[in-house]
C-alpha cells in the first residue's frame, strides 16, 4: 500500500488527538474526583447510584422525623414524670390525712397542698411546646383541658367523667408521623390517656379528695382515696414504660438509619467516585504516551527526500 505524506500527517494528528482525549479524560477525573461525568459514561452503573441517591435523600428526612418524634415523646415523658411525683406526694398526704391523729389545721394544710397538686395536674395536661398543645389529640391550638361552671373537668368540651362514644372517639385521637417506608408511629399521647378518664381521672381524684378534706370528710372517707391514687400512679408508670418502649424503638431506628446512610453513601461512591491512585497512574501513563508520540512524530514528519538529494 502506498504511504503518502498526507497519510502520515493525518494518522499522526489522529493519534495525537486520541492521546489528548485520554489525557483530558483523566485530568477531568482527577480534578472532579468523579469517574462518571455524564450518564452515558456508565448507564447501568448510574442506575445503582441514582437509586442510592434517592434513598439517601429520603433517609435524611426520615432521620429528621425520628428526631422530632423523640422530642415529642420526651415531652410526654417529662409530663408523666411530673404526674408521677404529684401522685406520689398526694398518696403520702392522703395516707397522712387518713389517720385520726391529724389535726384540723394539718388537714387544712394538706388540703391546700392537694389543691396545688390538682391545679398542677391541670397545667400539665395543657402543656404547650412551641405554641402547640401536646396532649389535645388533634386539637393543637386550644387548651384541651378546661373547667366548666361547676368545676368539672372537660376534655375538648366533653365531661371527662361521663363515658360516651364521643369521649371514646376523642381518646383514640393521636398524631402519627412517617418514620420509614410504609412505617408510621404515633408520637403524641392523648390527654385522656395521660390523665385517665372516668373515675380514674387524676384531676378528678385530686379534686374530689380536696373537697372531701375541706368539707369535713372522715378519716375513712379519705382512706377511700388511697388505693385509687395508687392505681392512678401505676397507670402513669405503665404509660411511662410504654413511652420508653417507643423511645427505644426510635433509637434503634436512628441507629439503623445511620448505618443505612453509610451503606448508601458507599454504594454511591463505589459507582461514581474515581479511585485516585488508579486515575493518577492512568494520567501519568497517557502523559508519557503523549510525549512519546510527539517525539516520534517530529522525527517522521520533517525530513523528506529533498534533504538527501544533492
Amino acid at each position, binding site marked *: *500500500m*502506498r*504511504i*503518502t*505524506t*498526507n*497519510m502520515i500527517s*493525518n*494518522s499522526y494528528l*489522529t493519534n495525537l488527538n486520541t492521546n489528548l482525549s485520554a489525557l483530558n479524560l483523566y485530568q477531568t477525573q482527577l480534578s472532579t474526583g*468523579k469517574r462518571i*461525568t*455524564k*450518564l*452515558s*459514561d456508565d*448507564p*447501568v452503573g*448510574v*442506575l445503582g*447510584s*441514582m*437509586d442510592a*441517591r*434517592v434513598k439517601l*435523600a*429520603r433517609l*435524611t*428526612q*426520615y432521620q*429528621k*422525623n425520628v428526631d*422530632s418524634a423523640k422530642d415529642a415523646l420526651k415531652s410526654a415523658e417529662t409530663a408523666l414524670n411530673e404526674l408521677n411525683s404529684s401522685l406520689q406526694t398526694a398518696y403520702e398526704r392522703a395516707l397522712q390525712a387518713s389517720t385520726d391523729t391529724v389535726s384540723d389545721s394539718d388537714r387544712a394544710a394538706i388540703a391546700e397542698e392537694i389543691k396545688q397538686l390538682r391545679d398542677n395536674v391541670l397545667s400539665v395536661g395543657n402543656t404547650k411546646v412551641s405554641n*402547640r*398543645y401536646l396532649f*389535645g*389529640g*388533634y*386539637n*393543637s*391550638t*386550644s387548651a384541651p383541658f378546661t373547667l366548666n361552671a361547676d368545676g368539672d373537668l*372537660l376534655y*375538648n*368540651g366533653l365531661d371527662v367523667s361521663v363515658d360516651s362514644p364521643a369521649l371514646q372517639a*376523642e381518646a383514640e*385521637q393521636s*398524631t*402519627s*408521623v*412517617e418514620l420509614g*417506608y*410504609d412505617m*408510621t408511629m404515633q408520637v*403524641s399521647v392523648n390527654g385522656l390517656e395521660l390523665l385517665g378518664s372516668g373515675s380514674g381521672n387524676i384531676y378528678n381524684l385530686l379534686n374530689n379528695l380536696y373537697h372531701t378534706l375541706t368539707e369535713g370528710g372522715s378519716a375513712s372517707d379519705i382512706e377511700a382515696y388511697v388505693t385509687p391514687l395508687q392505681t392512678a400512679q401505676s397507670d402513669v408508670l405503665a404509660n411511662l414504660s410504654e413511652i420508653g418502649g417507643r423511645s427505644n424503638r426510635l433509637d434503634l431506628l436512628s441507629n439503623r438509619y445511620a448505618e443505612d446512610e453509610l451503606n448508601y453513601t458507599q454504594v454511591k461512591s463505589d459507582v*461514581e467516585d474515581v479511585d485516585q491512585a488508579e486515575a493518577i497512574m492512568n494520567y501519568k501513563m497517557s502523559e508519557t504516551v503523549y510525549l512519546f508520540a510527539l517525539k516520534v512524530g517530529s522525527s517522521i514528519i520533517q525530513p*523528506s*527526500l*529533498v534533504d538527501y*538529494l544533492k
Partner: protein
Amino acid sequence: MSFYGLEIAKSALSLSQKGMNLAGQNIANAATEGYTRQRLNIVSIEPVSLSGRYLALSVGAVGGGATATSVDQIRSAYIDSALRKEYSSQGQWDTRATEMKYLESLFDETSTSLLSKSFTNFFDSLQELTEDTVSKEIRTNVQQDALTLTQTLNSYYSQLSDLQSQMNESIKTTVDRINEISKSIADYNKSIYTYEMTGENANDLRDKRNLLLDELSKLVDTQYSEDSDGKLSVSVAGNTIVNHGNYTELTAVADQTGVVSGTTGFYRVCIEDADGNLTNVAYTDGSLAGYKQLRDGNTADDMGIPYLMDKLNTLARGLAQQFNAVNKAGYTMPHDAEASVQNINFFKVPLDGDGDEDYSLITAGNLTLSDEVKNDPYKIAASSDPVNLSADNTNTGNNENALKLAALGTSASAIEGTGFEAYLKNIAVGLGISSAHCSNMLAGEDSLVSNLENRKEAVSGVSTDEEIIELMKYQHMYNAASRIINAIDSALDKLINETGMVGR
C-alpha cells in the same frame, strides 16, 4: 539520415517538460483538499501508423518517440462510493450523538440535577407538614417547593421544545445547502462535459465535483451514476435531484405538526415531480435523517426529543392526578374569614371545550399550582376532618391527610407502577443508554470512515518523495534528450556541411 531522429528527441523534450510540470502540479497540490494525483498517460509513437508522421517502409523501423495522450487521475470509484455511504451514516450518528450529549446534561442525575432536587425538596417539605399542620411557614414552604417543582418541569419542557424547533430549523438549512450543492454539481456537470469534449480529462473540475458529492453524502444519503457519455445524475431516495446540467430543488414544506409538542410549522422534505405535485422524499441517512429522528423520535427504541417530552408529560399528569385526588379528599385549614373546605385541587387542571376538567390537557410545560393553593398555603388539605377554630376540639392537629400527601412521595406505585423519583430515574437511565449507543455507533463509523479515507489516500494521495523521483526521472530524460539532439545535430552538420567536400 533524416530529421526523424530530431523528432524523436523533440517528443522526449516536450514529454519531459510535461512530466516535470505535472510533478510540480502534484507537489503544489499535495495539501489541497480533495486533490487526486495525476499521471501522464504516456504511449510510445508507433513507426507505422496513421498517426505517425513518417511512413517508414523499411525493415527495423523505429518508433517515433513517446507522447502523452492524456493526464489521468488515479482514483478508485469503488472506494469513493463505499466512503460516501459511510459518510452518510457518520453524518447521521454524529448529529444524533452530539444532541444526545446535550440532552444528557439536562437530565444528569450524577450532578445536582435540578429536577431531582426539586422533587426531593417538595417531598421533604410535605413530611415537615405532617409534623406541624398549623404553621404558616411550613405550609408556605410546601407551597413554594411545589411551585419550584412545577417551574422546573416547565423549564425542562420548554428547553426540549426549543431544541425540537432547532432540529426543525436545521432540517430547513440542510435542505437549503443540499439545493446549493445540487446547483453547483449541475454547473460542474456542464463544464466537465464541455471540457471533455476536447478529448482532455477535466481533472481539477472533477476533483471539485467529487468534493461536492462527498459533502452531499454527509448531509443525506445519495445515489449517483455517470453514464457512458459522461453525464452524471444524482438522486436521493429514488428522486433525481441532478440530471447532467439540470437540477431539481428539494422543498421543505412547513405543514407538519410536532410529535407530542403539537408545535405547528414543522418541515417535510418534498420534491416536485413531473406533474408539479409535491411528493415526500424518504431519505434514511445523513445529518438530515439525524435531525428528523431527533425531532420526531417517539419510542424507547427510537429515542428522540418527543419521547422525553412525552415522559415528562406523563410525570406531570401523574403528579396532578395523584395530588389532586388526595388534596380534594382532605379539609383545608381555616383562617381569617375562610372556612375549612374540601375539594380543593392541588395542581391546576385545564378545562376542555365543555368546561370540564381534562387531565390530558396537562403538559410538563403548563403544569402549575391551582389558583387556590398558589394564593393561600392554608388551602393545602392536611386534615381528614373539618377544622373548626371555635370548636372544643379544633382538629387543627389532624395530619392524616398530610400523611397521605407525604406518602405519595415514597409510594412505589404513584405513576405507571413506580414512584415519581424512580420514574425520573428511569428516564435518565434510558437516555444514558441511548446516548451511549449513539456515541458507540459514531465511534464505529469514525473508524470505518478513517479506514476508507486512508485507502483513498493510499490510491490517490500525493507522496512528495514519489513526485521528487518522478521529477528527477523527467529531468534526466530532458538532459539525455538534449544530448541526443546534440548528437544528431552534429551528425547532420557533418552530413550537410562536410560531406561531399572532396576536391573543393
